[in-house]
């Protein structure tokens, strides 16, 4: 039996209460959401917080819905809830593509979107997906609420813009008319972390690419993004050649490291191949008209806490 070191436990009853607890217990305290990253680390004694502050009961962090052309995702939204939501699937198929291959149903029932981003594992799938769609993170601290573009949220492996004493409260993703997206991942086995994965969003305007968003994970891409490839695509007509070239550019600009999932050369190859595939699939979806349309949006819906 693997057992964590001793710790104290506090249950937060509201966001202000959670913030107050964080302040009271200081840097040796940790927020716990789904616990699917934190508890394994505690059992291996790689993490040894003195106090766990449980935010699982907080309704106000579980909101999932569309507000003013923005998809709003509370930090406590579970993977399973995110995956089951039809509005998410309609506007951002990239999230459903990704969620289908994140972990397994047991982990997805409990793990949260906010926990995934705050864990900031360099192989995290949602980080790449949110980077592709250029989301905004909303962070709340004792001083109030601030917004951070997702591409400035991650500061490095396991490091984010959320300071001690702060909480990630939600993510905001603008719905862009005419945009379509997709996510492609290679894993060694169902439920495994990615060997490499890529997400792409394309907004077409008059037959050319008005804006491309490309996310990459597990290949050492800074901020989980591929800005050089995005720039290359801007103004180009979508097509096999352009997508392949974008893949080549993305592959050349990432910095994968060898591990038991594969040698660096393979991961670099995958970065290119998966960017190409994600772009192709996103473009296919745009052509099929499954792109984000204005008008047909679902109303606000509360998720379960």
């Amino acid at each position, binding site marked *: 039996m*693997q*057992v964590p070191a*001793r710790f104290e436990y506090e249950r937060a009853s509201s966001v202000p209460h959670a913030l107050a607890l964080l302040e009271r217990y200081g840097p040796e305290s940790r927020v716990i959401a789904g616990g699917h990253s934190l508890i394994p680390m505690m059992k291996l004694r790689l993490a040894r917080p003195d106090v766990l502050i449980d935010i699982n009961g907080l309704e106000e962090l579980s909101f999932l819905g569309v507000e003013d052309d923005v998809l709003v995702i509370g930090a406590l939204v579970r993977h399973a809830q995110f995956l089951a939501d039809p509005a998410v699937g309609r506007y951002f198929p990239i999230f459903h593509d990704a969620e289908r291959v994140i972990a397994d149903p047991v982990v997805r029932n409990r793990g949260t979107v906010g926990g995934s981003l705050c864990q900031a594992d360099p192989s995290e799938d949602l980080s790449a997906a949110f980077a592709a769609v250029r989301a905004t993170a909303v962070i709340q601290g004792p001083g109030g609420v601030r917004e951070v573009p997702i591409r400035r949220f991650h500061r490095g492996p396991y490091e984010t813009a959320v300071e001690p004493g702060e909480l990630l409260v939600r993510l905001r993703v603008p719905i862009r008319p005419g945009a379509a997206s997709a996510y492609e991942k*290679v894993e060694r086995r*169902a439920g495994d972390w990615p060997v490499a994965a890529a997400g792409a969003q394309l907004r077409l305007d008059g037959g050319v690419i008005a804006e491309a968003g490309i996310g990459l994970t597990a290949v050492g891409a800074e901020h989980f993004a591929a800005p050089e490839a995005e720039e290359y695509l801007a103004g180009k007509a979508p097509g096999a050649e352009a997508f392949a070239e974008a893949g080549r550019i993305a592959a050349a600009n990432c910095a994968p490291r060898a591990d*038991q*999932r*594969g040698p660096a050369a393979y991961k670099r190859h995958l970065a290119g191949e998966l960017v190409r595939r994600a772009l192709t699939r996103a473009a296919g979806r745009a052509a099929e008209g499954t792109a984000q349309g204005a008008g047909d949006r679902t109303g606000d819906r509360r998720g379960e806490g």
Partner: protein
Amino acid sequence: MTAETTDTTANATDTTATDTETGATATPMGFGRMHRKEDARFIRGRGNYVDDVRLPGMLHGAILRSPHAHARILSVDASAAEAHPGVKAVITGETLAGMDLAWMPTLSGDVQAVLATDKVRFQGQEVAFVVAEDPYTARDALELIEVDYEPLEPVIDARRALDEGAPVIRDDVEGRTGNHIFDWEAGDREQTDAIFERAEVTVAQDMLYPRVHPAPLETCGAVADFDRVTGKLTVWCPTQAPHAHRTLYALVAGLPEHKIRVISPDVGGGFGGKVGIYPGYVCAIVGSIATGRPVKWMEDRSENLMSTAFARDYHMRGEIAATRDGKVLAIRVKVLADHGAFNGTAQPTKFPAGFFGVFTGSYDIRAAHCEVTGVHTNKAPGGVAYACSFRITEAVYLVERMMDVLACELDADPAELRMKNLIRPERFPYTSPTGWEYDSGDYPRALRLALDMVEYDKLRAEQAERRRDGGPLLGIGISFFTEAVGAGPRKHMDILGLGMADGAELRVHPTGKAVLRVSCQSQGQGHETTFAQIVAAELGVSPDDVEVVHGDTDQTPFGLGTYGSRSTPVSGAATAIVARKVRERARLVAAAMLEASPDDLEWSVSEAGGRWSVQGSAEHGRTIQEIAMAAHSNLELPEGVEGHLDAVTVYNPPNLTYPFGAYVCVVDVDPGTGQVKVRRFVAVDDCGVRINPMIVEGQIHGGLADGIGMALMQLMAFDEDGNHLGASFMDYLLPTSMECPSWELGETVTPSPHHPVGAKGVGESATVGSPAAVVNAVLDALRPYGVRHADMPLTPANVWSALQGTPIRTDLAVT
């Protein structure tokens, strides 16, 4: 119904139909597809595993393990841990040395450190043992033990273990100057070499069967309870061989054997990893003796993966000599066997490379020779584990891979090439060039059935089309395996001097209900059902009326345990024979009841049950239940006939049994990512008579999943410092239903001529046979790229690297 009446027509399994081969249906008597008797408790969560054992006053142990692969221990300071509240005892190597228990014998005649005294020799090796009031305190106290290590250069790459100047791992053994353990050979070198010199075609291929781990869901553990008043030691642990454990404890610790009771309760999977004695068991026993209280120790997942018996780790070079038209003439093999830091493989004493000697497989080959060299490395000990039938897994993989390499060289169809070389049915019993006597088989029939089921020609046509028109790569892989299972005979096979024969006891109560006691121990094989079915078939009673007792040395006769697929071939045979003894005794009692001569009675089994009756007048008879009651009554019995209805036996198998099968795997490979998808898997198995076909199929399903795991994802590599890179289920991947196709099973039935019910073992067949089929399929898909071989596991990275011409070395860290 017994084997004598079994006919041997091939048919594809219809999983719901009557089992026509054995003539058995799902009747309450005899063989057939009945539900498992043990499932009721497992499905309801009422199993009783070691971790469920809770005794009054029980303490908890935890093991401190080495972070280094190779280091000298300068000092161990346990004083802070001893002073920690709740800690009852800290046991170190030094403590054990004082009791002469710091080292224990392994199953291969070597010794292994229980707790390290001089050096640590693999990462995860046991260094100290804490006994505390609860498991949390025990774990906390581990962090308070200070060990001063002087790191030494480790030997990680087995291929460098024999290099001049390589660090000597086993300097505990006097006079040891290197890491060489043994050389072993089989076959005729001269004859083989001579054929190679003249052969029209020869092929050679290096291949690694990587280190894998059985990874049972239940990890290892023990509860030891030493009673200071009675001097009796009771040990609960999930062992596959309770009686062997008891004898070993007696021999090593000097405790009188009748004062030792080993109980193996429900076991959550063994696969070979629970045959040996682990240091934790000994520590729990010493902890109980030291504290006078019961001590429980349960290892966690990482401990299980890092320190308990691994499997395989065979670096092989195979060569085949053949004619240009594809007749295989000779085969030779050189193996470098990585045995880890201690030689602890579990196999019959005379077989240091297990049964690898059957590497000529299912083919009629004139000459063969193999040599195996065992070496030490700074890795965990073990070696024969994971459903491998004592290294037949490696042997089958070698020969089946080589057949495909030859097919590649000759540009021949792998199915035709095999068909041409299979041992013909009329050649049985067949003596192989390395001296094994295959008992029975009809190989071409099994292969033909598998090819028909998979529609081989159609698939080859689809493949040709794909190769022409592009698209994902299609691969078709064949593996034909022959196993040798059910060790003894005791004359040739023993473990540490204990002959591999099994006892059985059968007692029929006055009302006709029976208790069978056997020495082997189920880890999921369903013995409580199949063995009851054997008794039921022999006595004409319902299997529900037969209780099977196993896993407790105080309640069962001596025997060597469950591994190497030996339960049905050995203990199952003992069961049939002890039931026949009881039936013969019943004949004498019935004769007294009927006032007839025993010779005039005949045995019959009908819907109503088994009965002895006077020949020709069936109505003039007595049921087995009536006979049982009479045997316990005041009925006067003839001179020499004891009352009651029971018998004992010890079964010493005259030969191994040789199950076989033909497997075909179909894969789609994405050349852009290297991902492999198993589209179909057809498995035709012949394990002789099937006692319970449902259980047989369950064993095959599990083994096929094992094969997918080993072939495609299981990776237990080590970096240059000896860090274990597969020490959790995040890194060591077990296959899931997502990676497994819907298995397509077929069967032929060729009874074993020497087993009392014609059965052969099946517990390992699919694990042995399937990896080669998967690997052959993937490599068949890659053939247009000129790829002839890549080692398991064929992860996406490895497949892609193979396509680039640089397959990955899977025993070392990926760089």
